[in-house]
């Protein structure tokens, strides 16, 4: 392979410019494989159908069309942010690496010139992208009903997508980690989602709303959408920082675990 003379980095860890470009291109091709794999899977199609349920209910019943702003925000917060999007993260995230292992396709990837941390990084980005695509379709579909029949501002889509992005980033990273670290990841993931929905509410009564992950997501989301959600003693920036730390820590832990994992 031809080597260019430009070196980047310290002496002990130097990469040629050529190697960096190749590494990036490999990542892009890997990302494409992962996204196509998601699109081809029945799981993604099932999630889209599930995500459309609120839209179908509104179409059939006409619910909320008389008070579109409040109804849309309530459904977006309680159904999408605290239930459906975490569920997407749960189902796509837990399966991100474990599905590759079960189908043995991981052997094709790990035996090629890719660092294991790159595989995790691109897989996470693919999970995030696919979940965002599904979120765009289902949330956009839901909003379009209110835009068409109740003159709701279409600009809400941007804010909704930003809050969805925060939600999906956090949950996908956590569930990708669980999918690699635990044998019954789906079970533990379900417990985590149920914690947010049930037990979390109880703990919130005891320890305060700062213990709810979806509470922090909703809190950080107030920077993009006009609704009220507060956590006493926490600013929006603090919630955002916490969510960033949780996300990055989960991704780094997944990389370390995968780096150490024997694929036997």
């Amino acid at each position, binding site marked *: 392979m031809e080597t260019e003379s430009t070196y980047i980095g310290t002496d002990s860890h130097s990469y040629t410019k050529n190697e960096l470009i190749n590494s990036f291109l490999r990542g892009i091709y890997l990302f494409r494989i992962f996204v196509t*794999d998601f699109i081809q899977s029945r799981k993604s199609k099932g999630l889209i159908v599930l995500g459309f349920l609120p839209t179908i209910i509104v179409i059939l019943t006409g619910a909320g069309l008389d008070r579109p702003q409040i109804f849309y925000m309530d459904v977006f917060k309680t159904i999408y942010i605290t239930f459906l999007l975490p569920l997407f993260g749960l189902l796509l995230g837990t399966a991100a690496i474990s599905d590759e292992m079960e189908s043995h396709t991981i052997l094709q990837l790990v*035996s090629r010139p890719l660092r294991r941390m790159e595989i995790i990084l691109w897989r996470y980005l693919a999970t995030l992208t696919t979940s965002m695509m599904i979120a765009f379709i289902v949330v956009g579909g839901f909003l379009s009903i209110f835009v068409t029949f109740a003159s709701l501002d279409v600009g809400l889509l941007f804010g909704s997508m930003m809050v969805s992005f925060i939600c999906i980033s956090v949950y996908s990273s956590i569930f990708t980690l669980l999918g690699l670290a635990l044998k019954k990841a789906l079970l533990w993931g379900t417990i985590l989602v149920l914690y947010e929905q049930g037990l979390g509410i109880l703990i919130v009564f005891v320890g305060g709303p700062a213990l709810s992950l979806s509470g922090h997501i909703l809190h950080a989301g107030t920077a993009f959408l006009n609704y009220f959600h507060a956590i006493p003693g926490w600013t929006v920036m603090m919630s955002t920082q916490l969510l960033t730390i949780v996300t990055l820590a989960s991704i780094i832990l997944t990389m370390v675990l995968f780096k150490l994992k024997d694929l036997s």
Partner: protein
Amino acid sequence: MSIIHLNEVSKRYGEVVALSRLNMHVREAAITGFVGPNGAGKSTTIRMITGLARPDSGEVRVFDANPYDSITVHERFGFVSEHDDLYPWAKVRDSIKMLARLNVPRLSNLDEKISESLQAVGMAKYADRKVSALSKGMRQRTRIAASLVHSPRLLILDEPLKGLDPLGRRTIMNLLLKLNQDDKVTILISSHVLEELEQLVDRITLIHRGQTVAEGSPEGIRKLVFSYPHEILFTSRPNDMKKITSSLMQLDGIIRSLELSEGKQEFMDCRVITLQPELFFDELVRISVENKASIVHVDAISESVEKLFDYLVG
């Protein structure tokens, strides 16, 4: 010069010892057969070599480097695992292309190389068929094609002939020979059937219970395997049996033991243990013809590969 070098490599999975101080060398530009019964540790060894797993102790070197998570090592080999590891939703050509791009992201004549690889494994006419619609043998051939596109210096193939029909086997064996002879590609190929590799390889490593049992040329290994006591049973009428056995007893060094027993109806069975089965069969036919004694049934009692390897381990 060795391209693959395993030194005292051990690996355990809980209580199960997969490899126990295994030593192995694969010479550059040679075809090395890696033979052992199921569960002997072949795939575990191959996963160490391909950097999919790490040894508990000992050293694995490929191209003089540790292959675990190493880009420089992974760039230089092609690997066909024992598993059906292709994405089922892709078409054959696309499947090879997307995997090849992970090796050579900027190869300008990639399509041409893919066509050559497909042609070489006899899959050119199925290039637009979905992987999920292929037979097991076709998928195997596709995986072999996918391991070749980036022109690797080393090919590591874990049971690549499994699931192939005789024609497919011949195609792949000819291809491997050609790659080795024309392009000097080093090949490590595993199988649990020794005979399958005899015509193909320069050297054979026998493995059993995670240990190297023997290493050498196919002729040397064949000699070693044939030193294993073979059990042969033949059936004849009592008068004929008497003539045959008395002649057999006079043969020097061919028969280790001979045991007569009542057979079905009016026949008698003779169970022979020999270290030279081919010579024994020649002599049996000669004696039978010379004495005009008929043999109604001959059977080489097949021993399991496990028993053979147990014998070799001692």
